[in-house]
């Protein structure tokens, strides 16, 4: 860590290396690969939200002249239930298998039941109707509150709640109960002079990535296989698919296509193991592309939640106790982000007495997947709403109340570690000093502020830098680029090597050309893969110095490296990187550096968002009129993409707060499975999202980097809902703050 270090490349707003291909349409995405002899796969999906599958008869489909393979759950080797960590968190292999193709039960409308590969896409689609399935329809369980009731229909007869003092005798929909505590919660509330307790609801939401899931695969006669797909983690596609098909990892090459958005939703598999089995059975390459309708109905959304938060404080603003009950919908299989929800809910606050209980609950909706800071937006929404109400109740400015209780270096978190240096106080100060916070509000306008926290992760990353004979270099990494990370890798390599960014080409390699790299998720790439880039670059520099030392017949210690040039400190000699590479054949062969690491010390990122809205009091429609996102980046490698992450997180959060929700009918069928009626914000709906980059360096990264990709979606839910509440004079505790809901709140109090 060298705060005094002057950077030559880091902090520059360079043109992204993937930009030209994207704007010209040349970039190849998941659906863009076709192979000779390729056929098309389609999936038959459950028309019921909850049903027993009594029998599947595919004989008529198999007899269809264009059908080349039919696959059901029965085609896969048996897998046993058990933990397995392929992607963004642990997955139960048995659940994963039953999610990609149902076993004996359909657990949500759209659940995959069988797959067909046929000569044409239309023939595959048509042949789906030839599969006869005998269903016994069961009542669906569509809300976490209903699912937790003792008399509720049970999705899984083998699901027994974990985390209770005694193992329950009866199966239920509650997969896990979790408890986190610190201090003495009762004493904390006894010491409080003001106590506020509120219930909150957040709906099921989708990540809304623009590119649907798509894959093209080929299973060869010798078992050597290839998967091309749109994913955040191709090594984890390899791991999951190999497990499900019982293959060696070395038999399976996965190529990550260019990716059109993921936000956590592309950290698991849906199509790939199905397509590969269809290819194995048909002997042909198989392509599968989800429709938008399928993406909504059958790929992982974000959890709906019901929560209760209770906070007590003294009149001077000292918070004495914080308590939360957080109930997360997992969808059809256990594994919601309830855990991170519990761990993040109160982390922006340094409070002595905390008690949190969380429930992970299955319902008849698609299995949730990670969504940008999974679990934190829902949990912290509830906490921040109560903090804002407390500020009003105590007549203390919401920034001052937060400053008074803010988490800082040394704060004991409820989940374990003490915080190292973090930037929450700096973000709050920046908010206080911003022109936005000083601007007066007009009629029918309201202002909301909220803080947000996300851990960020490190993990395994592998990078190879191959130097070319002319002194240019290729940065080979294993992390699909969902947020401009190639530009960051290029900048960090340039800084460390002293070679200009224009001479360094970053590429995302397939699973055969770079060692294992964990999924692009948890805001880890610029931090962890960046560290691997730095290590690989240092490896290159070390070799360059060795070569120069050999040429000059001096010791390596006598060679300095500066701005891409080796300097003989014992004389006047200079050798540029290009000259060393050109002469590499005479000094020991070509030069390549590697950095294969398991990065520790990811620095958490805090954010504070400010939102002004104007509400049409006659229709309940909300317009965001001003928005400022303030966040700690540690060190912004490429400030433009850091700002882009802040803005993107804010916009997704605004959508979540105002209009986005899965609307289900009474049969558990989603009624708005398309972008017409699942309303993500349009460009015309939003003002420019202003940003302020705060930089409190992370001591564990050579440049001080913290991940920035996720925290930005945490504060908007409460910032927007508070602004709406402020404008209309009614506290909005249920999301989304859609026009009908806001109008009703206005009318109910009139």
């Amino acid at each position, binding site marked *: 860590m060298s705060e005094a270090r002057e950077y030559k490349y880091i902090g520059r707003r360079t043109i992204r290396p993937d930009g030209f291909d994207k704007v010209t349409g040349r970039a190849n995405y998941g659906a863009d690969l076709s192979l000779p002899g390729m056929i098309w796969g389609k999936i038959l999906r459950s028309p019921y939200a909850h049903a027993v599958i009594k029998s599947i008869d595919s004989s008529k489909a198999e007899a269809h002249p264009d059908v080349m393979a039919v696959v059901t759950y029965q085609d896969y080797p048996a897998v046993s239930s058990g933990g397995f960590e392929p992607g963004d968190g642990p997955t139960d292999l048995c659940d994963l298998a039953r999610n990609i193709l149902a076993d004996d039960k359909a657990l949500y409308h759209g659940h995959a039941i069988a797959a067909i590969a046929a000569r044409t896409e*239309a023939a595959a*689609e*048509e042949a789906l*109707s030839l599969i006869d399935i005998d269903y016994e329809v069961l009542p669906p369980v569509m809300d976490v509150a209903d699912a937790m009731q003792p008399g509720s229909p049970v999705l899984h007869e083998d699901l027994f709640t974990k985390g209770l003092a005694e193992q329950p005798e009866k199966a239920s929909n509650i997969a896990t109960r979790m408890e986190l505590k610190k201090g003495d919660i009762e004493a904390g509330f006894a010491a409080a002079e003001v106590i506020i307790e509120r219930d909150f609801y957040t709906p099921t939401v989708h990540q809304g990535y623009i590119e649907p899931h798509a894959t093209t695969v080929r299973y060869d006669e010798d078992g050597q296989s290839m998967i091309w797909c749109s994913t955040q983690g191709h090594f984890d596609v390899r791991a999951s698919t190999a497990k499900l098909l019982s293959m060696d990892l070395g038999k399976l090459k996965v190529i990550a296509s260019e990716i059109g958005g993921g936000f956590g939703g592309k950290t698991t598999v849906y199509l790939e193991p199905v397509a590969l089995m269809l290819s194995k059975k048909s002997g042909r390459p198989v392509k599968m592309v989800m429709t938008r309708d399928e993406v909504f109905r059958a790929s992982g959304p974000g959890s709906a939640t019901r929560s209760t938060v209770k906070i007590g404080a003294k009149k001077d603003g000292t918070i004495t106790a914080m308590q939360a009950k957080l109930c997360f919908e997992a969808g059809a299989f256990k594994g919601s982000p309830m855990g991170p929800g519990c761990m993040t809910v109160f982390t922006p606050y340094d409070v002595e007495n905390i008690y949190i209980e969380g429930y992970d609950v299955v319902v008849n909706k698609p299995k949730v997947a990670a969504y940008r800071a999974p679990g934190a937006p829902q949990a912290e929404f509830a906490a921040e709403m109560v903090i804002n109400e407390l500020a009003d109740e105590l007549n203390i400015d919401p920034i001052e109340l937060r400053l008074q209780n803010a988490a800082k270096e040394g704060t004991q978190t409820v989940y374990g570690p003490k915080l190292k240096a973090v930037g929450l106080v700096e973000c709050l100060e920046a908010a206080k000093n911003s022109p936005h916070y000083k601007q007066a509000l007009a009629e029918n306008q309201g202002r909301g502020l909220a803080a947000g926290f996300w851990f960020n992760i490190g993990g395994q990353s592998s990078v190879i830098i191959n130097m070319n004979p002319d002194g240019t270099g290729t940065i080979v990494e294993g992390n699909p680029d969902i947020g401009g990370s190639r530009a960051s890798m290029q900048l960090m390599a340039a800084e460390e090597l002293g070679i200009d960014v224009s001479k360094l080409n970053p590429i995302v390699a397939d699973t055969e050309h770079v060692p294992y790299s964990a999924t692009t998720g948890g805001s880890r790439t610029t931090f962890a893969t960046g560290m691997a880039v730095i290590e690989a670059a240092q490896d290159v520099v070390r070799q360059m110095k060795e070569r120069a030392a050999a040429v000059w017949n001096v010791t390596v210690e006598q060679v300095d490296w500066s701005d891409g040039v080796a300097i003989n400190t014992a004389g006047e000699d200079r050798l540029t990187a290009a000259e060393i590479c050109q002469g590499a054949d005479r000094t020991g062969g070509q030069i390549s550096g590697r950095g294969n690491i398991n990065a520790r010390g990811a620095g958490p990122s805090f954010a504070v968002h400010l939102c002004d809205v104007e509400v049409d009091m*006659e*229709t*309940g*429609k909300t317009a965001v009129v001003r928005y400022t996102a303030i966040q700690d980046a540690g060190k912004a490698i490429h400030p433009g993409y850091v700002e882009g992450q802040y803005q993107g997180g804010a916009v997704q959060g605004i959508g979540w707060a*105002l*209009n986005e929700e899965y*609307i289900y009918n009474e049969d558990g069928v989603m*009624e*708005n499975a398309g972008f*017409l*009626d699942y*309303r993500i*914000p*349009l460009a*015309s*709906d939003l003002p420019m999202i202003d940003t302020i980059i705060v930089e409190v360096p992370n001591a564990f990264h050579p440049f001080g980097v913290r991940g920035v990709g996720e925290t930005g979606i945490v504060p908007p839910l409460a910032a927007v809902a508070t602004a709406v509440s402020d404008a209309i004079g009614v506290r909005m505790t249920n999301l989304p703050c*859609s*026009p*009908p809901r806001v*109008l*009703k709140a206005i009318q109910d109090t009139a």
Partner: protein
Amino acid sequence: MVSVVYEAPASVQDAVALLSGAEITATVLAGGTDLIIQMQGLVNESRLLVDLKKIPAMMEATLDAEGLQLGPCMSCAELTSREDIKSVYPGLIEAAYLIGSTQIQGRASVGGNLCNSSPAADTVPALIVNNAQCVIVGPSGERSIQVEDFATGVGQNCLEKGELLSLIRIPLPAANTSDAYLRFIPRTEMDIAVAGAAVSITLDDDGICTAARVSIGAVAPTVLVVAKAAEVLLGTKVDVQALQAVAEAASKASSPITDRRGTDEYRRHVVGVLAKRAAAIAAERVRGIQS
């Protein structure tokens, strides 16, 4: 398999002959912005598509002393760029401008909007308050019908087999008359109306309302004419009280459903707000002409 037969006749007579002689389901193709989406769900059904865009009269618009003769297939993009038409029927043009995105407006047409017969069609309330007429040509000749009588239900209209909408005829408004259209959507664009309202107003030299028409969309199986909402404006200066009465009459006339786009209660309320606001805008436009 789905097989599609595509024909692009050069005259209305040829189009009528193709439609009336078809042995498979025949559908007129205007811009196709609704039709192509509807056809994505087709399995094992063949279609004859009769594209009317090669018939010159279908693509033209003439504004003269009689009023506007609007070719039903003229794209909304072309229509909304016609300043001469906009100055006479600003409400109709703003309705056409709300359909879809800029790209969609390059294909979408007022005739297509009418024939798709959705109660949420944006241009229909604006056509109705301007007393627009549909000219329909079929195997047995030509007939005319008021726009408000054209649609008969959700997605249904009075066209018989072999018939097509050949012209939309909009009379020239009386002196000191203007119109306005407003719709409600939760976002700012590219959405389908939760409710819509068009108002046409005539004011005399003293600013007193002497004629009015009010039409509301997306709050009943078809777009409605609300005579009561027009009546309450007559004899007033379109003041706050009159506007409140318009809102109440429009809400009362509506019979909306609850669906993914809004509840019945919400739609009933909002359609009144829209009618009131559209009336105020139309009146303001007349005052602008007068001053």
